[in-house]
């Protein structure tokens, strides 16, 4: 987006950015609920999320001249928010090494094998036996942040792989790799949670699997 909406002279001299600000309010601030939800998914803390939202909006305002008319403001904000989140984590010396080694096709196979093994253990009815919502939220918090971002963007915010890749600032193949790995980890954690909750009797084999999570 250019500065074409910026008035040059009177009567907007007192408020030279009025047109730009009105557009920013209409296009960007209208996304606050989405941005707030995304920030909450990243931080898992309401206060941290609000701070991240404010920081993201300030960065968005300062860089609004780089926003191209017609682009998706929500995805643009998500990208700013995601970058800000990782920058803050880096400053706090809590940066996590990113594991992108997973081959997407192999992760899909591992997912199916994991399900097959669960069926053979008599755990195939997991979703009928427990409310997995709380377990998913806990498991999401335990995921490496880069994996969690992929899940949030694709599964929760319903972005395509390509859109999620743009937001995350990585190639599409990396998003697939992280997403598929994350889903498999979530599946493993849900089965472990069900066993820990006593839904299924623990066996030596399953105990070993759970210990390896």
């Amino acid at each position: 987006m250019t500065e074409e909406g910026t008035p040059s002279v009177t009567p907007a001299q007192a408020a030279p950015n009025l047109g730009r600000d009105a557009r920013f309010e209409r296009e960007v601030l209208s996304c606050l609920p989405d941005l707030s939800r995304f920030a909450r998914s990243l931080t898992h803390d309401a206060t941290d999320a609000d701070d991240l939202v404010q920081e993201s909006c300030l960065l968005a305002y300062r860089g609004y001249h780089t926003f191209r008319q017609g682009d998706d403001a929500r995805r643009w904000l998500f990208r700013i928010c995601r970058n800000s989140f990782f920058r803050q984590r880096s400053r706090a010396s809590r940066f996590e090494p990113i594991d992108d080694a997973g081959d997407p096709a192999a992760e899909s196979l591992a997912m199916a094998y994991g399900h097959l093994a669960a069926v053979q253990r008599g755990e195939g009815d997991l979703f009928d036996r427990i409310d997995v919502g709380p377990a998913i939220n806990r498991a999401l918090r335990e995921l490496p942040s880069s994996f969690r971002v992929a899940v949030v963007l694709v599964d929760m915010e319903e972005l395509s792989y390509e859109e999620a890749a743009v937001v995350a600032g990585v190639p599409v193949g990396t998003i697939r790799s992280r997403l598929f790995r994350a889903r498999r980890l979530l599946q493993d954690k849900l089965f472990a949670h069900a066993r820990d909750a006593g839904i299924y009797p623990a066996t030596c084999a399953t105990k070993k699997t759970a210990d390896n999570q």
Partner: protein
Amino acid sequence: MTITLPETTVPTSAVAAIDCATAVQRLWDYLDAELDASHMAEVEAHLRGCSECGPHFAFARKLAEQIAASRTAVEPCEALHERVVAALAAEGFRRARPGTFDPPRV
């Protein structure tokens, strides 16, 4: 356990047969509708004829649905909106309609 298969636009005669490993390797790409039409049709055709793979796809679909359902519900928050506007004002931002909070879309 059953799964709902989307309509395919690829003629059945043009669909190549794939084995279970290939179908499962495409599991997430298929469920996320990220495959091209011909690859989608190949997976669909395989699932129609394979009783082994269907449950894996159904379970994976259910997992994705449960993940989506766990999305945090965040209501439009006037306090956060006002806080952000106040922070922006320090940068020179001027809102079009001062003092109003128009609950944005959720």
